[in-house]
């Protein structure tokens, strides 16, 4: 894979960046909508390389994060969050939102459900994206898993909630907006990891090394989440 086709700062990609705004709207117009669409697309483009993958297993799941920057995991008795972003500053900003909620929580620890984080994080991402005072959205995406919730939060503030017991698939991904790369990555993970088998230390090392080498990723993180529902 050459740098020209994958690198998000390559000129060829930059030129294509705002060509397809979606929703059937013409991007040539001016005003708030154009700015909003630009920010939305820009945030997605900045997340071309970085990703969080969740692979469902019988007892919980495996999180795999990778990209240009170090991803973060936030653990709590009720949930585990894996988040990735375009820059370490943006990852840190998202993490500080999560910490602000958990630190000042006026109820009990048992009441801190994944939906609480979802509610605040989604509102924050949406507010930043729609705020005309900021030039860029927050290019951060994350997966939250709790005993009864499987949540994906996207950079636009959109989210998806599923019941972990009723999921049809075993592989889930956020970030990685390069379709070819996403397909390759999922194929590679499909070959490397069998969700029915136990994840040993050797296997973890093998997965990390393989991803680092094949996708030229400076950072790859792996964490196993187990829930006793």
């Amino acid at each position, binding site marked *: 894979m050459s740098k020209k086709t994958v690198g998000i700062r390559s000129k060829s990609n930059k030129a294509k960046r705002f060509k397809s705004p979606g929703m059937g709207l013409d991007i040539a117009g001016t005003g708030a909508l154009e700015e909003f669409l630009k920010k939305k697309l820009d945030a997605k483009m900045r997340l071309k390389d970085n990703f969080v993958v969740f692979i469902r297993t019988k007892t919980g799941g495996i999180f795999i994060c990778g990209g240009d920057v170090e991803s973060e995991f936030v653990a709590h008795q009720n949930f585990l969050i894996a988040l990735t972003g375009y820059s370490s500053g943006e990852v840190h900003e998202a993490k*500080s939102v999560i910490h602000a*909620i958990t630190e000042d929580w006026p109820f*009990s620890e048992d*009441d801190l459900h994944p939906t609480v984080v979802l*509610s*605040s994080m989604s*509102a924050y991402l949406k507010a930043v994206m729609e*705020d005309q005072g900021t030039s860029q959205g927050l290019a951060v995406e994350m997966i939250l898993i709790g005993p009864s919730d499987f949540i994906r939060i996207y950079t636009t503030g959109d989210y998806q909630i599923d019941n972990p017991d009723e999921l049809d698939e075993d592989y889930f991904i956020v970030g990685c907006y390069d379709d070819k790369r996403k397909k390759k990555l999922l194929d590679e993970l499909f070959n490397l990891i069998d969700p029915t088998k136990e994840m040993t230390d050797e296997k973890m090392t093998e997965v990390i090394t393989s991803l680092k080498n094949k996708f030229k990723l400076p950072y790859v993180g792996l964490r196993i989440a187990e829930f006793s529902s």
Partner: protein
Amino acid sequence: MRYKLFKEIADSALFGSFMKADPIPRQGRPTREDRMNTGTTILAFQYKDGILLGADRKTSFGYIRTKSLGAIKIHRVSPLTCVAFAGVVSDAQCLLDLLIRVNKSFYSRYGQMLTVGGQVNFLSKHIRCYCAENEQFTAEVIIAGCTLAGEFEIYEIGLDGAKYKFDYVTLGSGGDDAESVLHESRKLIRDKTLTFEQALNLATRALYKSGVKDNCSGDLRMACPSIATITVDNGAQFIDNEVIRKERDAVVREEESKDV
């Protein structure tokens, strides 16, 4: 700009609007001596199947007059939680309203019920905030409930927001008299061996004693107490008045026979 957004969202997620005390100036709020004082007896203790809460029905008007003999001092704030108040009526109503709103709001926002511990923490912080900014609430609170794991918890929240967890608790002006009755059965309460009938009898005897001894608690001979239970099977529910009346009559007969 982002910091402002962050603050707004964090405040909304943390129920900031509820946590802020009403801006009542200190000089505009009547002092405790000026206000109507209400004496009460409320109690809660554990028994075999869960928790039993009891309260008298009298509302005093000052130290001399009786305002009502039909007041309900125990309230169901969520399917698994009951709360009982002793103190100034307006403060109790304010706290009750707050607790109901927070419970509803939490459920509608996050799709989960607020736990007993969560409600206690919230109310305790609110009372503490208010106490620090203005005059304190003149209301003591018992919150009792069942967790989703099936464990029963009884908490007391004091006037300054201090919270305590007990196997049994009595509050209000007649609380000491009621406690002396419960104290005799403390081992049975701690071991959770009391049946419903025994628990009902114990609560009625405790409320009878406080009603006789305390001027500001309702006398059982004049007004039947209100009693509620919290169990795993049925959640929080009030006991039928007829059942309480029968028990009350039996206790009154028994106590009066001792005087003869």
